[in-house]
């Protein structure tokens, strides 16, 4: 699709961004998803078309509001504008200007009006213990609120580690019985964008995909979009060559640490954490600012069973999907040799010559003996 066919002027006014910046953003998101320029234009068009903006119901459970805060502080150009304008944010407990029963009423109204069309975003864990009394908003427990909102949602996105698998409050002993949205809504498909906080780019990309194509991007067994969580941090980490070469920082501030060696021995959870931090870096801040970039081992914040569950400096399991080719197999040897045509022929000729000489001698011998007789 040629960009001339499309009128961006309204959009430029609405979002207060230049056409160039906007297209750059869309192209960037599309590239993150592994899609081409065409998809970027499709996304741009979807965003520009007001009618396509899906209504969003945004629930907060047990959490610190980190995901929303991360989203708001994103460094990409006018991201907050995009977020607020590419979706129709009908209900968001942190950002809503109004408050009290009035807002709750609006939420119910929006859900009723957009039955089967709205996007549900869950942020924060859902406490199940004692009938969910540990988290209540407007007199309604998170359990009930989530169940109610999920009923008629077109799609459900669990945003942040708390919503994805329970997060910090689900760590042992978990007194409130906190679980993530996928564990609570067992019969629904829940896309998870784990991270503490999650990278807003992963959220935006997923939502844009949904807005553009009306369906969710491919997800893995834990509901994570494969484009963002398909690889271990370890696989793309720029300290990986140090790991492969066996160069490790063993203490904070030691020689290896100063030289930027691998942080595995300091307890880095990159080898067991699926996320795209090495390529997008934390929170899109840029400048190499993400835990491993600043010399701190990965905490595994986005990985269920790792973040908040394993000790910070404990050794991680290296989960490599396919062992890299650089490993020799058991039967790989140095200098194995096999016969070539020349050598085989030569060996054959040598044996043949000895046999041939014998054959000639044999026949002559026979002749001579018969002559003598």
């Amino acid at each position, binding site marked *: 699709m040629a960009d001339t066919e499309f009128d961006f002027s309204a959009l430029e006014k609405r979002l207060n961004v230049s056409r160039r910046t906007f297209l750059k953003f869309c192209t960037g998101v599309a590239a993150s998803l592994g899609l081409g320029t065409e998809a970027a234009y499709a996304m741009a068009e979807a965003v520009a078309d007001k009618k396509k903006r899906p209504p969003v119901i945004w629930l907060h459970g047990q959490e610190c509001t980190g995901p929303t805060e991360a989203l708001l502080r994103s460094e990409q150009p006018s991201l907050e504008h995009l977020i607020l304008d590419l979706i129709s944010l009908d209900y968001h407990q942190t950002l809503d200007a109004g408050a009290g029963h009035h807002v709750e009423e609006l939420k119910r109204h929006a859900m009723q009006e957009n039955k089967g069309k709205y996007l549900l975003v869950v942020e924060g864990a859902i406490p199940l213990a004692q009938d969910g009394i540990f988290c209540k908003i407007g007199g309604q427990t998170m359990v009930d609120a989530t169940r109610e909102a999920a009923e008629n949602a077109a799609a459900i996105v669990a945003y942040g580690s708390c919503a994805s698998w329970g997060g910090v409050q689900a760590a042992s002993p978990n007194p409130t019985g906190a679980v993530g949205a996928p564990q609570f809504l067992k019969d629904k498909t829940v896309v998870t964008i784990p991270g503490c906080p999650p990278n807003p780019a992963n959220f935006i990309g997923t939502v844009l995909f949904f807005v553009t194509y009306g369906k969710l991007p491919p997800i893995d067994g834990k509901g994570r979009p494969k484009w963002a969580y398909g690889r271990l941090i370890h696989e793309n980490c720029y300290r990986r*060559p140090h*790991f*492969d*070469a*066996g*160069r*490790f920082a063993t203490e904070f501030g030691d020689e290896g640490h100063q030289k930027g060696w*691998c942080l*595995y*021995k300091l307890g880095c959870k990159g*080898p067991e954490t699926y996320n795209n931090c090495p390529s997008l870096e934390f929170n899109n801040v840029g400048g190499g600012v993400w835990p491993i970039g600043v010399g701190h081992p990965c905490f595994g914040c986005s990985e269920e069973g790792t973040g908040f569950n394993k*000790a910070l400096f*404990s*050794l991680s*399991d*290296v*989960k*490599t*999907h*396919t*062992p890299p080719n*650089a*490993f*020799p*197999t*058991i*039967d*790989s*040897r*140095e*200098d194995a040799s096999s016969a070539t045509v020349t050598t085989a022929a030569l060996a054959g000729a040598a044996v043949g010559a000895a046999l041939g000489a014998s054959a000639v001698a044999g026949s002559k011998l026979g002749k001579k003996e018969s002559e003598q007789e």
Partner: protein
Amino acid sequence: MNRRDFLKTSLGSAAMAATAGVAEARPNLEPAPQAIGMLFDSTLCVGCKACVTACKTVNGNKPTIVGEDLQWDSARDLAPETFNVIKVYTDGNQLTKDSEVDGFAFEKRSCMHCVDPGCVSVCPVTALVKDPVTGIVTYDVDACIGCRTCMTGCPYNVPQFDYDNPFGALHKCEMCNQKGLERINNGMMTGCAEACPTGATLFGSREALLDEAKKRMALKPGEVYNYPRGDVRDPSSYHEKAVPEYRQHIWGEKEAGGTNVMHISSIPFDKLGMPPLGERSFVSISESVQHTLYSYMALPAVVLGGLTWLVKRNTDGDDEGGEQ
């Protein structure tokens, strides 16, 4: 019956049967009194190759460069410049670590420092020696004639000759205790064990390592165990990890008389490239045969006496041959 099974099952009995009536067979050698060794736990190995790098650094070996494209160490197997290498076992989709089916596992290749070393037994010039105290198998380059019999006598194909050098020598792991390095004598541990981030390569006395290995065998899969790193007798640190499903087999406890470097894993050892060995070492058999035939040179002397008498009798009166 395949070859492997055959060798495994019949070795012991076959050896016994054939010795009958010859002489008392030489039994396997015993571990050295203060045998130093290592324990490689394949389930702990994460394939970081820190040990490979450390080994090359400590021993001053150059990296193995493959072609012009790979400019980092890519040793595929033991080689003159590689005393230690991490190899991978893979099966099917290679998804699960330490799973025999559809999994992968790492395996270390280095000198096993046999209790009854084949290389030491077959070397004609005593270039390879098992240290009487530490049990470390060391190499004396000034004695070596380069006949490479040690390579044929090693069940693990460990000694490597530097063919590409007109004045090449044999190369193998000497537990970082060769002349000029002597890490063990100076109270240090081997380079690989020191570098290992997970304790997959654990240093220590053979006795302590065997105890540790047996302890791990007895653990229940899934329970958390505090794995030591460094020297098993005085670990530099520990790390907690769930216990995997170990094979109830400590490679090197008994194989061919045992080894000072022992392996444990979740994968059968033949899959990890270990040879089909029985409990009796092959060199104990060959030495039995050899010492039966050449004990104090008595038999050759007697035979020579008899032969001399026969030849003398048959050549008397006829300078060169017997009766016509």
